């Protein structure tokens, strides 16, 4: 159940966004994608799912090329959670049931309902199952979206900034959840993150990209001060807290700020 990406290229008109991106991930691995705004992280996820058709390269899921597949067939292999999503008036159950859409013709089978119930239990959403999505908190809504993607029974999960609008507690909850389901269901999760420390805490592999090119791909060891400076043009120190690497920007945040009022 590996995910192999080989030489993906994509450009908007003449502007290249992805240049020859390749990576390989094994089942159960959570891969964090790190990079500054506009580095091509979101484009990479969309190109993998073929929401954007790449100009070159291949994507193989379990050795099968997705290039020739229909959008429905791809949706049975890969779940995708975009950065932004509208909210609509559905019950949580119905919102998750929508993840079965790529599998069903029109009618909902007993198996579809079973999958939904299983996913709801897996994500601890049983108490909310019959409530309207519009009544949920931000963290719960994000869990519903992850549940929907899991109801697709995907081999690969593509998540674009899933914890961006969540408070610290919910960020850790949702990331922990992703960590757990990725391992339990033995799938590959590619997660675009802005928070390097959450990435270091929860991910197995790290894909560092800048201007559509891979800077580094590997385990925790690739998150070095040098690489972080390349990615974000930022000086950092890597410390260790509870055995987990923690990236801290240099300086106390005040020293190099100009004084508010200059007195002569």
């Amino acid at each position, binding site marked *: 159940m590996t995910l192999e990406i080989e030489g993906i290229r994509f450009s908007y008109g003449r502007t290249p966004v992805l240049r020859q991106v390749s990576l390989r991930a094994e089942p159960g691995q959570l891969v964090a994608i790190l990079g500054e705004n506009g580095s091509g992280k979101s484009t990479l996820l969309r190109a993998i799912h073929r929401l954007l058709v790449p100009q070159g390269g291949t994507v193989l899921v379990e050795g099968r090329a997705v290039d020739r597949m229909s959008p429905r067939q791809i949706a049975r292999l890969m779940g995708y959670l975009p950065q932004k999503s509208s909210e609509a008036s559905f019950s949580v159950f119905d919102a998750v049931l929508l993840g079965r*859409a790529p599998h069903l013709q029109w009618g909902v089978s007993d198996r579809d309902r079973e999958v939904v119930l299983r996913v709801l239990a897996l994500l601890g959403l049983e108490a909310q199952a019959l409530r309207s999505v519009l009544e949920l908190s931000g963290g719960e809504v994000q869990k519903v979206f992850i549940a929907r993607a899991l109801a697709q029974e995907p081999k690969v999960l593509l998540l674009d900034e899933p914890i961006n609008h969540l408070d610290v507690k919910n960020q850790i909850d949702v990331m922990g959840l992703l960590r757990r389901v990725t391992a339990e269901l033995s799938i590959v999760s590619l997660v675009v993150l802005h928070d390097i420390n959450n990435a270091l805490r929860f991910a197995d592999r790290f894909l560092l990209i800048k201007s559509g090119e891979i800077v580094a791909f590997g385990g925790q060891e690739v998150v070095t001060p040098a690489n972080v400076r390349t990615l974000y043009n930022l000086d950092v120190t890597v410390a260790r807290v509870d055995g987990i690497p923690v990236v801290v920007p240099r300086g106390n945040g005040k020293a190099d700020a100009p004084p508010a009022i200059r007195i002569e």
Partner: protein
Amino acid sequence: MSGNAAGIATGYGALLGHKAAVAGVLLAAVVLLALAALAVGSYPLSPGDVLAALAGRADGVTAHIIGNIRLPRAVAAVVAGASLGIAGAVMQNVIRNPLASPFTLGVSQGAAFGAALAIVSLGGSAAKGLATTMQAWLTALSAFAGALATVAAILMLSALRRLAPATLILAGVAMSALFGAATMFLQYFSTDSQLAATVFWTFGDLGRAGWRDILLMTAALAPALAYFLWNSWGYNALEWGDETAGGLGVSVGRLRLGSLAASALVAAVTVACLGVIGFVGLVAPHIMRFFVGDDHRFLLPCSALCGSMLLLAADILSRLLLAPVVVPVGIVTTFAGAPLLLYLLMKGRKVP
């Protein structure tokens, strides 16, 4: 399956049952209102008379009134209401804007302009009874062409300039204004009888419908209805945005184009047959969202039924308000629809 899961399954079944019951109540309301529409009027008939006439066991006058005047009127209300209601629901979904409807997208105004153009350039008057059959058909055809031209222009704008779906509504407003001005321009240079005929077209009237019109409207509605219902899951996915829908395997561009074309066709045929009937297409989906939420497996059929119900009720009102004068139903729907919409928009909606 754990007890928890069984509880959810039961509760979800009840939720679906509730939504199905809403559809059932609507269906019953449509049947009852249709019977009422057959009974009321300047020549009142008892429910017994109506049923007897429908069964073909009525005397000459009653049979004539029911068969030739009230039945086509009621059936037209059901078919046209369903067409406008479902077209509105689909447009609101694929354009991602709660203000979308045949009326707000300029489809209706395009049709009214087409009709006005035919009336003025043919030199005759297409008003009821005055027109020859040929003129009436040409006028309807021209109205249809006007409606399709509006939709084609909006679709081309969206394809060429890659307008965001929400911007389409603004394009529709611009098209409405353009066609409105063009219609007024024609009216300014038309004779009195032509003016009367063009104005007549701008407010829809159920009395205009003959069985031929009803057949035409049904022929347009039936395949569109099947297409819409088949794509219910696609619309449900679109409710969460294009990106989410794409991730769920929906071919967003194709669904949007096909749905806009089909809903515009249905609306265009309705306007061509009856004239402009505002607000039904806009309000019916909003009312139903209030009861069944955004699940299009229920929202679409319910919006169609609600459209029929609203148009039947408006028709009954239009004949009772100033009896024996019959107010065109288009005026009643707009009068009743506008405040209703305001009320609905001010109330939130959280239907599970």
